[in-house]
């Protein structure tokens, strides 16, 4: 009797297990299905543009709805440059905040600063856009941009990068806004991974006579390198795809200018601006192709970060 009971109970458990396994498997499969659905519809939607323009789509600057001649190089350039500026400013500041919060900050201040960072992450991007247009851009137009133009005006090379009239909005302003927007993401993740460093390791280093700077450089950062790169990549992903805030402050011009103070555009801003009113197959298809290109760029960035992580893990393993 008892043996039979145990047998049926085990079978019940086995059935429950297999149902649970199947359910989670379906859930996991959904991701793959969704992703392939997105890729397929992007590729199908891009066919008219790709078959008309071919490879030239990637190298042409013209974006002319009247004559239906479209090229993606200006938005691709804008996307990469604004993301680069955002990372250039955002990553060091984020790491600085995270290090301060975990290693140096007085306990009483930790919670308020931490909460402030999380609140920054919670602000919708449209708010950043409106703030950028009405407050930040006029401020830059009157202060930082004339300063940059003055300082670099006579430096060959840099006078091209910081040239032109101070519009207030443009590629540089967009990069700054993006830097502010990615800051809370990178900070929150790096802070969390810094907290995973076992105190005993740090204490040992201090015991050996290391300074705080040495402990951070030689112990904390190497220990958490993978997590830091993960945080930076998440920030970069946001910077590449950010739409509304950028649409407000980048100037939306389909041109590549030598100056980063000049107006430009990004892939997502172009799509957001023009999709509603795009008429005709070719125009719509060109916008979808832009979406496909952004997808590929994001994919490549993620793939590169994976490879970097794998290399680092291998190195630390040997």
């Amino acid at each position, binding site marked *: 009797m008892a043996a039979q009971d145990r047998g049926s109970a085990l079978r019940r458990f086995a059935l429950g297990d297999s149902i649970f396994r199947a359910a989670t498997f379906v859930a996991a499969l959904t991701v793959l299905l969704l992703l392939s659905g997105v890729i397929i519809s992007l590729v199908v939607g891009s066919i008219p543009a790709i078959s008309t323009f071919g490879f030239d789509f990637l190298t042409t600057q*013209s*974006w*002319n*709805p*009247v*004559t239906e001649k479209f090229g993606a190089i200006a938005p691709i350039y804008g996307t990469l440059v604004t993301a680069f500026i955002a990372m250039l400013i955002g990553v060091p500041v984020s790491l600085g905040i995270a290090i301060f919060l975990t290693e140096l900050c007085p306990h009483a201040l930790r919670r308020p600063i931490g909460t402030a960072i999380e609140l920054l992450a919670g602000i919708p991007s449209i708010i950043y856009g409106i703030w950028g*247009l*009405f407050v930040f*851009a*006029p401020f830059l*137009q009157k202060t930082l941009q004339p300063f940059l133009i003055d300082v670099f005006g006579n430096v060959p090379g840099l006078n091209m990068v910081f040239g032109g*009239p101070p*519009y*207030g*909005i*443009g590629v540089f302003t967009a990069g700054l806004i993006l830097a502010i927007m990615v800051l809370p993401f990178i900070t929150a993740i790096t802070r969390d991974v810094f907290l995973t460093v076992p105190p005993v390791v740090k204490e040992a280093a201090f015991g050996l006579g290391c300074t705080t700077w040495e402990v951070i450089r030689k112990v904390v950062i190497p220990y958490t390198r993978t997590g830091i790169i993960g945080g930076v990549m998440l920030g970069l992903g946001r910077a590449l795809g950010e739409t509304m805030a950028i*649409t*407000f402050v980048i*100037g*939306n*011009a*389909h041109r590549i200018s030598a100056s980063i103070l000049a*107006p430009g*555009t990004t892939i997502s*801003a172009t799509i957001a*601006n*023009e999709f*509603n*009113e*795009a*008429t005709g197959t070719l125009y719509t298809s060109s916008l979808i192709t832009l979406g496909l290109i952004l997808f590929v760029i994001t994919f490549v960035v993620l793939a590169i970060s994976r490879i970097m992580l794998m290399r680092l893990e291998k190195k630390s393993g040997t």
Partner: protein
Amino acid sequence: MKFTNLAIAAGFAAVLSVSAASAADISGAGATFPNPVYSKWAEAYKAETGNSVNYQSVGSGAGIKQIEAKTVTFGATDTPLSGAELDKFGLAQFPTVIGGIVPIVNLEGIKPGDLVLDGKTLADIFQGKITKWDDPAIVALNAGVKLPSTAIAVVHRSDGSGTSFNFTTYLSDVSADWKSGVGANSAVEWPVGIGAKGNDGIAANVSQTAGSIGYVEYAYATANTLTYTKMVNKDGKTVAPTAAAFAAAAAGADWKSQPGYGVVITNQPGAETWPMTAATFILVYKKPDDAAATAEALKFFAWGYDKGDKLAEDLIFIPIPDAIVNDIKAMWKSDILDKDGKPVYAGS
């Protein structure tokens, strides 16, 4: 920003009324330009009749796509469809209100109406051929006005827009260079300047940037107290943007010459006429699948023609002339028919 608040309030009203859906509810989508008027009309119409009109202001292009896909009862567009396009889908088209587009500038010491421009100069500025405010072409039009020697910052729409369509149509009309170089469309390849999203975006950018010039629907210029310019019209007269000047353009238009009343009324003749005036249009099926819904939509627009004039004028939109309204209503009766061949709209 009062203007935006109105639109938002009306939008909320529309959302609220959707939740109390009844059989008579109809939906439409399209142009952003007339959205303030349609929202106001829908609000007053709901209060009077209890019937809701849900209008999504998603842009003219999207409005055309949605009516073609039959996801809405009516579509709305600022770019009139051609006769061939209307025939292809079996659509009827009629205008609802008229608005004006004005150039706005930000120049120290220059007040609204101080500066005068003509079409050719405007085209040259937006093409980057005139780059300084004290260019001889601008000085010649403005004897006695002190113009600075600063660079002109051009601000244009970044999103596709019926306002841009009418603006570039006007520039194509007055400048051969513009016509061959840039052309007319709801989105064009702007030779110079920065792009701003929506009428609000242009208003914001111009009010912040010294030495800038842009173009907006007239109501946005007054709501944001921006410096609009006067224009030299087709008859060579200098006119200010006023309701009377917009109405003069509408009166001079040859509405019946185009299929679906699809006239573009920029650069119309007449001494009083404002040169950048534009009508906005509604699209419905001539043989609708859901005749009852289309009948409700027509009832709503008939109400707008008969009782919505004051509401439109408050927002500085001009009603369609009565003679044309009568013609449109006759067209509804003869062209928009149910399955039995009877007119779907029975009103007068």
